[in-house]
């Protein structure tokens, strides 16, 4: 069992020795440039249409979206959603500064706990890092203030997302992370975990028929905060 054995077998198949220096520097340049390929035109739209496409795609994938005018409206939107769905008002909340700054006290009936999700949690509130209009996908990097279990364990997953964080194609979301991410261990931009989430958990394993809520959340609800004046019609 060795690295050299595996690499040697590959080189025998390719009928050459190790990659020569000039070729390797070309390959390293490709990695550094990470060129984009063809980007589908469907999400290359003016901002309001991009946001509308995101909402349409989330709903197509069995998620739901509510738009609110500002961050101060988020606690009420969550409380109303839970009441309308007949869900408990106990939440586990991502320990993210933007969520901590929300006026939760305006809805005193909401019981909050910060941290990772436990198996007993029924409702989680995650901080949305970015979202992709092309497919209605949320980008949720796992960081200390955005625990991964919040995306997975609760029956109802709520994500608070700023409209300014909606991009067109998936490549634009990676560009944001490339520009903003700082991993303490690798020095790179990518954290340990990045989840791209498109709708609630599902399975078609029983008689090829789709059912929601296989192992992850049965409901995915996005609270979209209109912080971006250019994104409003």
């Amino acid at each position: 069992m060795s690295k050299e054995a595996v690499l040697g077998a590959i080189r025998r198949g390719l009928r050459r020795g190790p990659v020569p220096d000039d070729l390797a520097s070309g390959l390293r340049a490709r990695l550094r440039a990470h060129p984009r390929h063809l980007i589908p035109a469907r999400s290359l739209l003016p901002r309001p249409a991009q946001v509308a496409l995101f909402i349409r795609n989330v709903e197509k994938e069995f998620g739901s979206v509510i738009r609110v005018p500002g961050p101060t409206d988020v606690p009420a939107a969550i409380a109303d959603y839970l009441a309308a769905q007949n869900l408990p008002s106990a939440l586990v909340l991502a320990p993210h500064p933007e969520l901590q700054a929300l006026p939760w006290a305006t809805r005193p009936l909401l019981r909050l706990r910060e941290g990772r999700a436990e198996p007993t949690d029924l409702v989680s509130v995650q901080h949305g890092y970015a979202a992709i209009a092309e497919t209605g996908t949320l980008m949720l990097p796992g960081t200390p203030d955005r625990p991964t279990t919040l995306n997975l364990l609760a029956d109802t997953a709520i994500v608070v997302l700023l409209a300014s964080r909606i991009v067109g194609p998936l490549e634009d979301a990676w560009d944001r992370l490339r520009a903003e991410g700082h991993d303490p261990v690798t020095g790179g931009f990518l954290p340990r975990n990045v989840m791209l989430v498109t709708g609630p958990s599902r399975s078609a394993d029983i008689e090829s028929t789709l059912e929601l809520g296989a192992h992850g959340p049965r409901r995915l609800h996005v609270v979209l905060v209109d912080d971006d004046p250019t994104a409003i019609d």
Partner: protein
Amino acid sequence: MRATSPAFRENAAHALADKRLQKALVFTRPAFPSRRAAAIAQLPEFEQLRKTGRDIKDHTLANLDFYLETWAANVERAGGQVHWCSTADEARAAVLAICQRVGARTVTKGKSMISEELAINEHLEQHGITPVETDLGEYILQLRREPPSHIIAPAFHLNREDWEESFRASHTDLPPGRVFADRRDILAEARAQLRARFLAADVGITGANFLIAETGSTVIVTNEGNGDLTQTLPRVHIVLASIEKVVPTLEDTCTLLRLLARSATGQDMSVYTTFSTGTRRPGELDGPDEFHVVLIDNGRSAMLGSPFQPMLRCIRCAACLNHCPVYFTVGGHAYGWVYPGPMGAVLTPTLIGVDQAGHLPNASTFCGKCESVCPMHIPLPGMMRHWRERQFERHLTPPTARAGLRVWGWFARRPWAYRLITRAVAAGLGRLGRKRGRFSSLPLAGGWTGGRDLPAPEGATFFARYAREQRAGRA
């Protein structure tokens, strides 16, 4: 997994007589092609993306050693370990060594075809470790001790009654008189049973759809979320990945993701696409303390530089299975090993030998549908033809077939003789069958007429008719 591919003929006959299986095949067959077609209709760039996807994989395969080394260095920078394994035996030993070192008793598993190739469950069980499949389809197959019959819908051959039967037999802690009103009740019971397993597991094993050289990431694509629970909750995460999974960058991955879900289930994007890069970071509340990737060759490197190299572009979407008339007639188990359908007919002989799996590349009508839907433009029928040639060269083809081919070859190389004999046969059969218009049995063709009638020729050959119409056209 012990291969029953040498018994493909018997397996197929058995499958044709299996009423439950035929019911599931008939029920499922139309769903996959129509979902894929609907998704692709919404993406006008799909054909262009296919070409780009093919080129990305070809570029990566041509520089596979470079990209794997780059990827592995980045895994290690993120606190992970790469275990390079040439064979299935080495890979099984690597997984077991990690599990034993951490004193694992139960191991949860996300869906992974390479883990079927390694038969890792049996290996762990033999050493006193309990593996638990968590993908819903794989879970019921584990309860029933059956292999998967499809690479992305492993249990689609089962009907609702099969699920209920197995759950009653296995979940003996629940009231035996409980009622399953609909599929949701079956799902809810599996969810509750598996939640406890996720939380108790010491090690989580997943596969990988992609490895990203640029970042040292492994990527899984799922709909249920079981893979994510498998890799997030236990202290140790082991990824099983074969060497051809690597791609250079996130941008390359974007293009392949646009092809994968549409070709597989007709979704624009699967529900969870998750990028894992190393171990839990300081201050993080979730994630494994150990991150291992068992990187497996197991026959892939021998495909490089061979006519079968394009098969290494495969992203395991199952579009070729989903559109295959043979696959949807006999189901996946008949193929007798891990990979069924057209991609299996090409891959299985390379991995377990054409002497074992020679029937598979012959179980094709060469209709070409598989190649036409493959998102990576893999020339599947062409490669099946290569296998038939190799079989012939190695004298693995049965003597009667060899004799038949020799006779046909003699005529095919002598056009005058070919025309003479076809003219005689067409005229003779035309006269004999004039009354009924078809034959229900013919000498030397019993195998063919056993399942269907042969329409009687009209009396003249294609050549004769072509020549006649050419003359008429000129006149």
